[in-house]
């Protein structure tokens, strides 16, 4: 194959092109060499006639007026804005080392830009900083399916059929028949209170239950619901952990439909191994859990190259929740609340770890010690596991070391008594100003990009008293309406978490990923400045 064609075929977004589109690019292609220090084009000079791709070497983009400097490496593209807008370039491009560039004539580039939507999307998204969309584009180019990210609403194909609890079994059977559905949601004042399915009917007939009986006496309760944005995998895990086969899909307080485990299995056939693993967690003997953990980790590693961090982490966190729940649920132990903190509380865990507090009302030492040992044997890293008597919650939180405080605001009730959890939240709310300030400081001072965003977003969430939302992406979605800059940082967060996760598993990332990371870090720097200004933190951004 002709070397320039082979080179372009390998790099995104040219890899999105058909053979005929690539030929159009080749028909407008040149190659030029630039010596170190040579100026390729100047800011405010003539509008560019070529788009540039670095074949080898380095290019420095500078803006003398704003002290902007950016180094570009092999495979990176520059001159996009000027070529697309026909305006003078906004930066000066200088060879930072001897380098060879491919130059694509503007006319040929525009021709392909106008004919290939995916190709043009790539450039538009670079210009508009829709970074995570570029990740999505590049992921689709690897022809991976994106099933883990399918939201449950996509599985709802029929309008929900509802009835009141006073309706007769006969009427409900008629409703199912008339609407050609297998289940009916029983409502009271528009709120779902139970489910009645086709499979319940033979049982009632067998038991000779009069068909005029009220459905409210024979429906399955309680109703477990999931928000329409929830993923199919989350829905499945919810069914498994509650031992049910149907979930009601809600949009805030409105019923949108009902989904069954069968709907999910049909949809997620190719991921049946992970699904069967989650089913097995419930029925498996405890001694086989370490072996199960290895299989889970293999599945998660496989997912990491195909699915965004937000989905992988929610699914893996869900799996780890199931295991912990299995070990603590239904045990004859004193009343307690198991609260997950930090990344575990935010459902942002990839690898299994324990970062929790247990609030109890009678001595729980032995129980916690047993669970801790079991978790360690299964493969959990025990980062933090603190037990607090319910009467000591106030004192404990009031005296809590400030270094730990921010992650307590990510605390999520995994299992146990809600009253204990509510007490925990109430006490925490008394130190909320400290929580905001500490999170803001962490945002600015930590070197880890992910933790920096997590802390900044937590500070803003606490400022708006959003104590019940824990996941960083969900917090961002809530904050977007209030603070415009959160939209950009959400893009940046998605890019950073996604690429860093893949780097962990694959030990390398591509040129486009490097470029996206660089853009994401620029947004993060602005975000840190914004947080610094908002909370009056004099600092080192």
């Amino acid at each position: 194959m002709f070397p320039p064609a082979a080179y372009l075929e390998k790099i995104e977004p040219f890899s999105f092109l058909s053979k005929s589109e690539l030929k159009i690019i080749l028909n407008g292609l040149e190659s030029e060499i630039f010596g170190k220090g040579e100026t390729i084009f100047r800011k405010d000079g003539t509008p560019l006639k070529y788009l540039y791709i670095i074949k080898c070497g380095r290019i420095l983009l500078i803006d003398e007026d704003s002290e902007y400097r950016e180094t570009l490496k092999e495979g990176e593209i520059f001159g996009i804005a000027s070529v697309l807008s026909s305006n003078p370039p906004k930066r000066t491009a200088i060879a930072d080392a001897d380098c060879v560039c491919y130059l694509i004539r503007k006319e040929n580039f525009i021709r392909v830009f106008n004919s290939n939507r995916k190709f043009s999307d790539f450039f538009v998204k670079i210009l508009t900083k829709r970074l995570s969309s570029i990740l999505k584009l590049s992921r689709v180019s690897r022809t991976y399916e994106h099933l883990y990210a399918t939201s449950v609403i996509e599985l709802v194909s029929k309008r929900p059929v509802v009835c009141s609890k006073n309706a007769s079994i006969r009427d409900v059977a008629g409703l199912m028949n008339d609407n050609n559905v297998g289940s009916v949601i029983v409502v009271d004042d528009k709120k779902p209170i139970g489910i009645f399915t086709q499979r319940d009917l033979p049982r009632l007939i067998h038991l000779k239950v009069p068909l005029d009986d009220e459905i409210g006496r024979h429906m399955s309760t309680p109703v477990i619901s999931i928000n329409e944005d929830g993923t199919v995998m989350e829905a499945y895990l919810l069914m498994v952990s509650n031992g049910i086969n149907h979930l009601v899909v809600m949009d805030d307080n409105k019923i949108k439909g009902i989904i069954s485990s069968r709907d999910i299995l049909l949809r997620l056939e190719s991921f049946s191994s992970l699904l069967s693993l989650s089913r097995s967690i419930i029925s498996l003997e405890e001694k086989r859990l370490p072996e199960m953990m290895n299989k889970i980790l293999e599945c998660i590693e496989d997912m990491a190259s195909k699915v965004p961090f937000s989905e992988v982490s929610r699914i893996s966190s869900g799996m780890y929740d199931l295991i912990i729940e299995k070990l603590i649920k239904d045990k004859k132990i004193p009343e307690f609340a198991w609260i997950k903190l930090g990344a575990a509380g935010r459902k942002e865990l990839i690898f299994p770890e324990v970062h929790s507090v247990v609030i109890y009302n009678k001595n729980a030492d032995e129980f916690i010690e047993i669970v801790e040992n079991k978790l360690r044997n299964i493969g959990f890293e025990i980062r933090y596991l603190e037990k607090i008597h319910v009467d000591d919650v106030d004192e404990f939180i009031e005296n809590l070391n400030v270094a730990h405080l921010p992650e307590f605001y990510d605390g999520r009730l995994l299992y146990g008594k809600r009253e204990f959890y509510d007490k925990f939240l109430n006490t925490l709310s008394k130190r909320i100003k400290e929580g905001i300030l500490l999170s803001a400081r962490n945002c600015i001072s930590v070197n880890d990009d992910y933790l920096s965003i997590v802390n900044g977003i937590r500070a803003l969430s606490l400022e708006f008293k959003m104590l019940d939302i824990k996941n960083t992406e969900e917090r961002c979605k809530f904050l977007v309406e209030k603070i415009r800059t959160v939209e950009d940082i959400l893009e940046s967060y998605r890019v950073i978490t996604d690429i860093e996760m893949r780097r962990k598993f694959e030990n390398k990332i591509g040129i486009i990923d490097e470029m996206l990371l660089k853009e994401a870090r620029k947004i993060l720097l602005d975000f840190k400045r914004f947080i610094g200004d908002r909370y009056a933190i004099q600092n080192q951004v």
Partner: protein
Amino acid sequence: MLSKIRFNALDIETTSLDKNAEILSIAIVPMLGTRILIRDCYSTFIKSKRINAKSIKIHGIDIKTIESAPRFEEVSEIIFKKLENGIVVGCDIEFDVSILKKYFSNQDLKFDPRRIDILQIERYIRRKTAGRNINTFDELIRIYRLDDFYRHSALVDAYYSAQIFQLQLKRLMLHGISLEELLRIGKRREDFIPFYMG
């Protein structure tokens, strides 16, 4: 101004390396100064009477391709026009030029272009920088760290020649070399003319 001079990186694949060699394919990669005009690259197979198993093995060209290719006289005008206004560049370029001379003379076309041998240029640069001597095209490709593609295709080899000459020219231009000097150092000296040219 060397940056305004037209160069043509040339490569031909032949049935053998003697004076009776027949052309199997030809490729031209034009350059304007150090800029390679990839968009204007030209390459074609040429119908040959003497293609044999050895040529097929070396060049990876199948008989059907050669049988369905145009005869040289059908494309000679296009090739002549592409080459007439530029300086021909390549590795062991005397051989390629001598074969083409013979072909063009059969068409009553006089072909004697100015030419530059990139192996000679490299030897000059290495003499100045006390580098190890270079004797083959493969060595040139290796030292310039060019991407490793399947060789023995006229277009790929012509493109390699263009890339190497692009780097050499840039280096020499920084030292203010003139066209005359470039032609002088790029000329194959008599003592380097290989046996098959004798």
